[in-house]
C-alpha cells in the first residue's frame, strides 16, 4: 500500500494547491456542504451521486465566483504595484485591505453584465457595489482612473459612430436572415475588397492623379533637341491628331481621346515638378513624378499584402484551433449548426433540410470511410484510374481553352492589323517615309476633299467600326464565356470522382482558379509577344499611329477592357438570363422548367468572380492608375448585383457553408491571385524596356533603373547602409536568426500539442478514476443501507419478540 499512499499524498498536495487557487470558493462550499453531503448520502439514490460533485453544482454561483476571483487577483497585483510606488503610505496601518476603491468597484460593475442572472438581480448587485463604502482615489491614481473611464466612454461612442458608418448593414442583415452566416461572409469579403480598393485609390489619387492635374509641366520645344530624343518622341506622341471616332466606343475601349487622359500610364510626366513659393519658403519645392509613380505601386502592393496576410492569419489561427479539433465535427454540427439569425420561414425550412443532409452526409461519410478500408484493391484501383482520367480531361480542357484564347487573340490582331495595313504599306521605312510625306503634301493641298472623304468614311463605316470593336473585344469575350461555361463542365465532372463533400468545394475552386488565371496568363503572354515583336519606335516622324507607341498604355487598355467586359457580363447574366430563369421557376409548376430555372447561390463561383476582378486590378494598376478607382466603383455596383442575384434569383443552397472556413479559403485564394498578378508587373518593372514616347520612365532601360539612379543620389551613409543590408555579412546571420526563431516557435508549438494530448489523457483517466470511486461509493452506500435495514428489521424483530414475551 505504500505506493498507493505516496500517490495519495501527491494527490493531496495537488489538491492543496488547487484549493489555494480557488480558496474562497471551497471554503465557502465545504463546511456547509459536509453535513449536507452526509444527509444526502444517507438518502442517496446511488445513481444520482454524480450530481453531488462540486463540478456539477449549479454553475450560476461558480461562474460569478470565478469572474470575481479573477478580478480580485488582478486587483491584488495592481495593489501591489501601487504599494511599491508609494511606500511611505504603506508604512501606516493599512485599513484599505478590505475596502475596495472606486476603480475596483467600477471594474466590478463592468463585470456584472457577464453574469447569467436576470436584470433586477444585476441591478441590485450594481446598487450594492455602488453603495458599499469605498476609498476615493487620489492624485495620480484618480487621474489614471478618470482617463480609463473617459477612454471607455470614448470607445463606446466611437464604436457607435463606426457602426453607423458601416456600409450595407441592413442588406447584410437581410441576406443573413435568409441565407445564413456562410453567405454573409462572402458579402463581408466583398466589402473588405471594396475598402481595400478604396485605400489603394486614395493613395493613387493623392500622389499621382492630383499632382498630375494640379502641377504644371514645363514644356520643352522639340526644335532644340535631336529628333530621336525622348522630348521629341513624346511631343510627337502626345500632340498627334486623334483620329475621329465614336465617343462611346472610345470610352469602352479606352482608345482615342481616352488614351491621353490620366487614366493611363502614357500621359504621366517624366519631370520633377519644381515649385517656387515665395510667401512661405524661400526654397524650391519638388515633386518627383517618376519616383512617385514607382513608389505608389510598391506602397499599395505592400498594403494589400499586409491586409491579406493579416486577415488570413486570423482565419488560419481559427483553422489551426479547429484542425486540432477535427474530432469536434459532430459537436460543431449539433451545437453550432443553427444560425440564430435566420428569420424567415422558407429559409428556416431549407436550413433544417441542409442540416438534415449534413448530418446524413457526415454519418454516411463515416460509413464510407469504413467501407473504404474494407474496399477491395480492385475497386480502389478503379477509383484512382477514374480520378486520373478526369484530371487528364480537366487538363485537356484547360489547355484547349488556353489555345482558344491564343487563337482568338491572334485572329483579332491579324484582322485589325490587316485593316490598318490597307493604308500603310510596310515595305520599308524609307519608302514609308516617302509615302507619308507625299500623303502629307496631298492632304495639305486638298483639305476640303479630305474632309469629305472623312465624312464619307464615317458614314459608311459604322458597321465596320462595330466589327472593329467586336474584333477588339473578341479575346475578352472569349475569356469571359469560357469562364462561364467551363466551370459548369468541371462541376459535372467532379461528380464522378467520389470526393468527400468538403473536398469537392476545394477541388472545383482550385480548378476554376487555374482556368481563370491560365486564361489571363495566355492573354498576357500574347500581349508580351506582341510588344516584343513590335519594335518600340520613336513617334517622331511616324505620323500614323501604328498601334504600339506606348505599350504600357496598350496593356492598361487591355485590362481596362477586360474589367468592363466582366462587369457587362455579370450584369447581363444576372438581369437578362438568371432573372427570367428565376421568374420561370417561381411562376410555373412544370417540373422541367423548375429544373432549368432554379438556382442556388453557389458560393465558390461568386467568390471567384470577385477575386478575378481583384487580380486584374492588381495587374493593371501600374499601367492604368485609374483601375483601383474603377475597381472601387465596380465593387460598389457588383454588391447590388450580387445581392440581387442572392435575394431574388437564388434559393438558399442545400450545402452548408461554414463562415469560418470559407473566410480563410477566400483569403488563401486571394493571396494566390495576388502573387499571380504581381509577378508579371514586377517582371515588367525590372526587365522590360519602357516605351520612349510616353510615361514617366521614357529614356530609361528599365523602370527599376530609374529607382537605382535616384538611389545613387542619396547620401553616402544611407547608401552604404542599404548596401550592407544586401551583403552576405548581414544577410546570412539574419537568415540564420530567422531560421532559429522559426525552429523555436515550431518546437514550442509541438511541445504544446504534446502537452494538450497529455492533459487530455490525464483528464480521461481522472474521469475513469472518478467513475470508479463513485461506483465504489454507491456500492458502499447500498451495503450500508442494507445493513441498516437489516439492523432495523432485527431490532423490530427484537422488539416484537420482547413485546410478545412481555405480553405472555
Amino acid at each position, binding site marked *: 500500500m505504500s505506493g498507493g499512499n505516496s500517490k495519495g499524498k501527491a494527490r493531496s498536495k495537488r489538491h492543496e494547491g488547487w484549493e489555494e487557487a480557488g480558496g474562497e470558493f471551497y471554503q465557502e462550499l465545504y463546511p456547509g456542504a459536509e453535513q449536507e453531503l452526509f444527509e444526502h448520502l444517507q438518502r442517496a439514490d446511488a445513481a444520482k451521486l454524480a*450530481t453531488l460533485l462540486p463540478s456539477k*453544482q*449549479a*454553475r450560476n454561483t461558480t*461562474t460569478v465566483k470565478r469572474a470575481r476571483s479573477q478580478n480580485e487577483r488582478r486587483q491584488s497585483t495592481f495593489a501591489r504595484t501601487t504599494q511599491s510606488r508609494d511606500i511611505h503610505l504603506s508604512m501606516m496601518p493599512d485599513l484599505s485591505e478590505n475596502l475596495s476603491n472606486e476603480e475596483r468597484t467600477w471594474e466590478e*460593475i*463592468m463585470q456584472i*453584465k*457577464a453574469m*447569467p442572472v*436576470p*436584470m*433586477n438581480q444585476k*441591478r441590485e448587485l*450594481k446598487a450594492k457595489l455602488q453603495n458599499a463604502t469605498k476609498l476615493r482615489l487620489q492624485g495620480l491614481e484618480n487621474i489614471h482612473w478618470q482617463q480609463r473611464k473617459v477612454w471607455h466612454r470614448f470607445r463606446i461612442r466611437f464604436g*457607435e459612430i463606426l457602426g453607423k458608418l458601416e456600409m450595407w448593414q441592413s442588406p447584410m*442583415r437581410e441576406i*443573413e436572415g435568409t441565407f*445564413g*452566416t456562410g453567405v454573409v*461572409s462572402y458579402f463581408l469579403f466583398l466589402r473588405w475588397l471594396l475598402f481595400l480598393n478604396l485605400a489603394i485609390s486614395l493613395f493613387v489619387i493623392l500622389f499621382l492623379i492630383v499632382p498630375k492635374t494640379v502641377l504644371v509641366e514645363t514644356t520643352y520645344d522639340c526644335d532644340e533637341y535631336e529628333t530621336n530624343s525622348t522630348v521629341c518622341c513624346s511631343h510627337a506622341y502626345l500632340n498627334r491628331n486623334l483620329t475621329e471616332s465614336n465617343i462611346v466606343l472610345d470610352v469602352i475601349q479606352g482608345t482615342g481621346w481616352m488614351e491621353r487622359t490620366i487614366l493611363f500610364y502614357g500621359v504621366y510626366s517624366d519631370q520633377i515638378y519644381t515649385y517656387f513659393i515665395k510667401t512661405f519658403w524661400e526654397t524650391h519645392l519638388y515633386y518627383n513624378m517618376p519616383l512617385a509613380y514607382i513608389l505608389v505601386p510598391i506602397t499599395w502592393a505592400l498594403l494589400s499584402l499586409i491586409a491579406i496576410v493579416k486577415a488570413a492569419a486570423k482565419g488560419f489561427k481559427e483553422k489551426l*484551433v*479547429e484542425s*486540432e*479539433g477535427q*474530432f469536434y*465535427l459532430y*459537436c*460543431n454540427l*449539433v*451545437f*453550432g*449548426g*443553427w444560425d*440564430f*439569425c*435566420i*428569420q*424567415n*420561414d422558407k*429559409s*428556416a*425550412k431549407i436550413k*433544417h*433540410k441542409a*442540416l*438534415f443532409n449534413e*448530418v*446524413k452526409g457526415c*454519418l454516411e461519410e463515416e460509413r464510407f470511410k469504413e467501407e473504404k478500408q474494407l474496399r477491395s484493391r480492385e475497386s480502389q484501383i478503379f477509383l484512382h484510374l477514374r480520378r486520373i482520367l478526369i484530371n487528364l480531361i480537366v487538363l485537356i480542357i484547360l489547355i484547349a481553352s488556353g489555345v482558344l484564347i491564343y487563337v482568338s487573340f491572334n485572329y483579332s490582331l491579324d484582322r485589325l492589323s490587316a485593316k490598318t495595313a490597307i493604308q500603310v504599306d510596310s515595305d520599308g521605312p524609307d519608302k514609308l517615309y516617302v509615302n507619308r510625306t507625299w500623303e502629307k503634301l496631298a492632304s495639305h493641298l486638298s483639305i476640303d476633299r479630305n474632309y469629305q472623304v472623312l465624312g464619307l468614311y464615317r458614314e459608311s463605316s459604322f458597321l465596320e467600326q462595330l466589327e472593329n470593336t467586336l474584333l477588339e473585344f473578341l479575346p475578352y469575350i472569349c475569356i469571359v464565356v469560357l469562364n462561364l461555361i467551363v466551370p459548369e463542365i468541371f462541376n459535372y465532372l467532379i461528380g464522378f470522382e467520389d470526393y468527400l463533400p468538403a473536398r469537392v468545394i476545394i477541388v472545383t475552386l482550385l480548378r476554376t482558379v487555374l482556368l481563370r488565371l491560365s486564361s489571363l496568363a495566355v492573354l498576357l503572354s500574347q500581349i508580351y509577344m506582341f510588344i516584343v515583336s513590335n519594335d518600340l519606335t520613336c513617334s517622331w516622324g511616324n505620323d500614323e499611329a501604328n498601334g504600339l507607341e506606348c505599350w504600357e498604355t496598350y496593356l492598361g487598355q487591355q485590362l481596362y477592357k477586360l474589367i468592363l467586359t466582366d462587369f457587362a457580363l455579370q450584369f447581363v447574366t444576372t438581369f437578362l438570363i438568371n432573372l427570367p430563369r428565376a421568374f420561370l421557376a417561381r411562376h410555373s409548376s412544370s417540373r422541367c422548367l423548375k429544373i432549368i430555372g432554379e438556382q442556388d447561390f453557389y458560393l465558390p463561383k461568386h467568390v471567384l468572380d470577385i477575386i478575378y476582378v481583384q487580380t486584374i486590378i492588381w495587374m493593371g494598376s501600374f499601367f492604368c492608375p485609374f483601375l483601383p478607382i474603377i475597381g472601387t466603383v465596380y465593387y460598389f455596383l457588383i454588391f447590388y448585383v450580387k445581392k440581387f442575384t442572392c435575394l431574388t434569383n437564388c434559393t438558399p443552397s442545400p450545402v452548408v457553408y*461554414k*463562415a*469560418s472556413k470559407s473566410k480563410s479559403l477566400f483569403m488563401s485564394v486571394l493571396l494566390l491571385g495576388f502573387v499571380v498578378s504581381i509577378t508579371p508587373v514586377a517582371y515588367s518593372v525590372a526587365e522590360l524596356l519602357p516605351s520612349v514616347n510616353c510615361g514617366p520612365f521614357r529614356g530609361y532601360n528599365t523602370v527599376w533603373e530609374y529607382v537605382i539612379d535616384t538611389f545613387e543620389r542619396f547620401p553616402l551613409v544611407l547608401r552604404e547602409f542599404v548596401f550592407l543590408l544586401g551583403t552576405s555579412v548581414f544577410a546570412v546571420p539574419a537568415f540564420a536568426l530567422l531560421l532559429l526563431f522559426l525552429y523555436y516557435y515550431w518546437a514550442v508549438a509541438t511541445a504544446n500539442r504534446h502537452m494538450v494530448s497529455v492533459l*487530455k489523457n490525464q*483528464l*480521461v483517466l481522472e*474521469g*475513469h478514476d*472518478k*467513475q470508479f470511486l463513485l461506483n465504489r461509493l454507491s456500492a458502499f452506500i447500498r451495503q450500508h443501507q442494507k445493513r441498516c435495514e437489516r439492523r432495523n428489521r432485527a431490532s423490530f424483530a427484537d422488539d416484537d419478540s420482547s413485546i410478545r414475551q412481555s405480553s405472555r
Partner: protein
Amino acid sequence: MGQGKSQFTEEELQDYEDLTYFTKKEVLFAHQKFKALAPEKVGHNKNAKLPMAKILQYPELRVNPFRDRICKVFSSSNDGDCTFEDFLDMMSVFSEMAPKAVKAEHAFRIFDFDGDDMIGVSDLREVIERLCGPDLKLSDSEIQQLVQNVLEEADLDDDGALSFAEFEHIIDKSSDFCHSFRIRL
C-alpha cells in the same frame, strides 16, 4: 404612452448601458422592437410582461427551433414570459459584443432541456430532433449514432453526459459558434 425616448429616465438608461453589451441608443432601439411586439401593452407599461407566444413573434425567434427554451432561459419568472428587461438580457447575450464565455453559458442552459445541469443523452436527442425540423426525421439508429459520436468527441470523463466544463471546451474550439449564436438587433 408616447415616444420610446420619454419612457426611460437617463438613470435607467445608464443602468442598462452598464449592465448589458448595448449602448443607450441600442437599448432604445431594442425597446422599439419590443414595443412592436405588443404596442398597446408596452405603451402603457414600458416593462410589461409579455406572454411567451408574443415574444415568439420576434422574427428570429419565430423560426428558431429552440425558441421556447430561449424564452424560458431568459425569463426571470422561469415560465417563458418575458419583461422588457428579460428581452434586453436576451438581446445582449445574442449581440455581437458579448464574449464567447457568456454565450456558451446561455447556450448550455438552452440545450439543457431537463435542467439537470448536464447535457445528457435525452437532451442531445432533443437538440438533434429540433435541428432537423418537424418535417424531416432521422431514423432512430442514426440519431443514436450521432449522439454516440458527439459523446465520443466531447465527453472527456466518460460519464455519458456533457458537463458545462466539457461544453465550454467544445465551444472554445468552435469558431462557428460565435458566428451562428448571434441575433442582430
